[in-house]
């Protein structure tokens, strides 16, 4: 869902850069007081994994594909601010090195994927922990709904830029990203099940605590 340059107008680019910049600087300050040294290798490996996974587009039918965004996965492993930092780093490298997502649109891409998807996932997951059902289902629902919310924000930015009317694209964006989001939820659940079996004795995954803490 990387927005290329040309889709957003200047006011939307500037606004999203400012919003993302403000949110990230708040988050980094918060992380400075809470970040544990033992998280460093996980931060690096998770970033490399999500970058690699984002390169793999999976066909979802009807001549369309989707790939993992990874914000919910990172949030459930390391907590939301670390996740925002990981996804932002990925988006910067993709844009600056590989022309995946525009430079002017980077603020919007960070907002949609590193902030909205992560934080929507954080609130939805923690809300769902109050309801008693399987953790796997909870993770799939979180991945799905956070991806759809991120797609809605993308549609809002496109319409805010007057490139296309919101009514004209909202249903299509939500429709495609419901299928892509289901894939996001399932991949997130599978990766977390694997990590729970293999590394969780040495490293406590953020979602194994009573709800995910915010830093």
């Amino acid at each position: 869902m990387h927005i290329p340059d040309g889709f957003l107008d200047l006011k939307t680019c500037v606004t999203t850069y400012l919003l993302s910049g403000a949110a990230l600087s708040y988050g980094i300050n918060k992380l400075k007081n809470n970040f544990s040294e033992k998280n460093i290798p996980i931060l690096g490996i998770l970033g490399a994994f999500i970058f690699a996974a984002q390169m793999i587009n999976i066909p979802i039918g009807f001549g369309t594909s989707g790939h993992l965004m990874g914000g919910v996965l990172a949030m459930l492993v390391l907590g939301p601010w670390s996740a925002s930092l990981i996804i932002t780093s990925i988006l910067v490298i993709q844009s600056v090195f590989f022309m995946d997502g525009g430079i002017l649109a980077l603020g919007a891409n960070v907002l949609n994927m590193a902030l909205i998807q992560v934080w929507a996932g954080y609130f939805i997951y923690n809300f769902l922990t109050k309801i008693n059902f399987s953790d796997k289902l909870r993770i799939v629902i979180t991945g799905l709904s956070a991806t759809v919310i991120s797609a809605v924000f993308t549609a809002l930015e496109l319409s805010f830029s007057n490139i296309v009317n919101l009514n004209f694209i909202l249903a299509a964006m939500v429709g495609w990203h419901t299928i892509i989001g289901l894939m996001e939820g399932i991949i997130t659940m599978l990766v977390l099940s694997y990590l729970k079996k293999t590394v969780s004795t040495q490293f406590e995954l953020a979602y194994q605590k009573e709800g995910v803490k915010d830093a």
Partner: protein
Amino acid sequence: MLKVNKYIYLIIAFIAFLAFLNPILSSSLPDGLEKVAETKNFINKAQDSFSIFEDYSLPINNELLSRGAAGLLGAIILYLLLLKIGKILSKN
């Protein structure tokens, strides 16, 4: 630091597998946003932006190798960048 877990080697091998084989594993179909931009007729507004490489390809004279190497390079850059950021954060 984490005690080295034997699974970490498997995870690293899997990341290298995905990154290097991305030209074979990845579908070239449009993603959700591109599909909407195509069907709603604004895909032609997309512009190339500045970037160091053209898409996911390094200047190597073999397409699979060029895209595979780009995937590996990106994954390594991210690993090193996040390690550095993590070290700066944990110093404070």
